[in-house]
């Protein structure tokens, strides 16, 4: 990186870091310029009815932005979570917006892009959040069964945890950046329940090699590894939307085989480094430090993850 390139990237919106951008900035920069139309925008003030009970501040969009826009000319539905508001967690309103969007996608046969950024269920409305996740998964899968493509993007501050991890795995395909983490139980939850010997949540290198974007890409948990720029996510969304493998019985049989193969191949590994070595990466320890370009080249050499088994 030179000083000149550092200076020029300041003015380029598409070069903006996805990780740092807000949900609104992500939506704006992802879509064709000026094409976004929001449904139930902040001016509607459809906030959580539950947060006031806990004396917590609300957000006008409840941390979920949904609407329609154009991506490379094509009309799509889009959803984005704001990971900094309540950790992007699913609450009643937050979740219902996405449920409605996915039901509409099935009805209108319009593809969907979801920008995940979530810690899972929102504690203060846990039951409503859990239900929202169940409803979103059903709506998403019904959309896919109707041959509607649903693409997930993961690279935000809150990662994609809890029910968010399950929803992501229901998508037709996923793009993930190095910063993106996909997992069900978070590091602190595992440590609290099972002890620091099982998982040291403060060992961030461990967190990332167990749940992070590079690992997910290497084991087939995500289709595309992207650089941490809005442009890179946009390109990935366009590429993934172009292929529409509908959800079918055959697809799930293939997924069963894919997952069982993974269990057979790596089920006895103690650490992600062992998995990477077994994948044929001699210098596994060097993977975390690799730049986007280096890793992308490595990934392409090691594993083909467009598997049509999701």
């Amino acid at each position, binding site marked *: 990186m030179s000083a000149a390139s550092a200076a020029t990237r300041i003015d380029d919106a598409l070069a903006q870091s996805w990780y740092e951008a807000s949900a609104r900035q992500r939506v704006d920069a992802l879509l064709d310029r000026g094409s976004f139309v929001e449904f139930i925008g902040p001016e509607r003030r459809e906030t959580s009815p539950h947060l006031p009970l806990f004396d917590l501040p609300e957000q006008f969009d409840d941390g979920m932005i949904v609407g329609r826009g154009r991506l490379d000319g094509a009309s799509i539905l889009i959803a984005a979570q704001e990971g900094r508001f309540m950790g992007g967690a699913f609450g009643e309103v937050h979740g219902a917006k996405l449920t409605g969007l996915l039901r509409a996608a099935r009805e209108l046969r319009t593809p969907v892009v979801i920008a995940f950024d979530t810690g899972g269920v929102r504690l203060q409305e846990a039951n409503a959040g859990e239900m929202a996740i169940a409803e979103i998964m059903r709506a998403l899968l019904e959309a896919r069964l109707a041959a509607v493509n649903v693409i997930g993007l993961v690279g935000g501050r809150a990662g994609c945890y809890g029910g968010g*991890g*399950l929803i992501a795995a229901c998508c037709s395909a996923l793009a993930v950046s190095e910063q993106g983490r996909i997992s069900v139980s978070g590091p602190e939850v595992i440590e609290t329940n099972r002890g620091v010997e099982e998982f040291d949540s403060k060992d961030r290198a461990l967190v990332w090699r167990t749940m992070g974007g590079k690992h997910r890409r290497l084991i087939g948990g995500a289709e595309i590894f992207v650089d941490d720029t809005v442009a890179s996510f946009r390109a990935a969304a366009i590429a993934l939307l172009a292929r529409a493998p509908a959800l079918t019985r055959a697809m799930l049989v293939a997924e069963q085989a894919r997952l069982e193969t*993974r269990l057979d191949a790596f089920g006895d590994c*103690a650490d992600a480094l062992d998995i990477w070595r077994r994948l044929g990466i001699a210098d596994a320890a060097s993977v975390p430090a690799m730049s986007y370009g280096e890793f992308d080249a490595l990934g392409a050499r090691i594993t083909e993850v467009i598997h049509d088994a999701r």
Partner: protein
Amino acid sequence: MTLAEILASLFPRGSSVVVEDGLIHGQGRRVDGSPLHVIGVCERSAVGIDEAAKLARHVLEIIAGEDSAPILVLIDSDSQRMSKRDEMLGLNEFLAHLAKCLILADVLGHATIGLLYGHTAAGAFIATALATRTLLALPGAEPVVMDLPSMARVTKLPIETLQAMAKTTPVFAPGLANLAQTGAVAATLDPQRSLAAQVEEILVANAREAGKDERDVLGKRRNGRTKAADIALRVQELARAST
């Protein structure tokens, strides 16, 4: 009710249902003699990658079979297995895969019914019970999304305060009544009556209804989730109008 009692009440003439490593699978006969597939989790087992893969395999085998018989999912589980190994190998994919298989089975004509007879929590709840079309429960079932001690830790509110708050809203506290009110549970069965008969009633009623997910509507009717159904509907309308 214990699992044995449940199976006895469901299948008075016996069944091939077996328990292996905390997982349930097999088949029994409905009143009319037609088959009823059974899978599930028992003994409060955690649902990890190995369990999810086995359960999903059972579901796919049912789908591959000749009949279009319903699938009963019995649940007495822990939460998802919280471990380094499970997350490292992609627990989210395994749990989602299980949910997908259940939902696909339902769409392909194997009506899915969940029966929650014990504990369940968090991700395991989503991937099993909540992935069925109709979720039933027995009294004493304990679904937990977030336990109050953990909540007290994070919100820094005393448990007593949370318990008092839980009296005015079903939205956060654990328990069958709260989950039922938010629309998760369609009906709670009467353990004094034959479960076979009660399940039969549900299956007949379900056959008449379309496979639409109406849990949010139910949650609104029960005053447990007042906004979700309307918001989802409104988004759908706006999406329609935006084309």
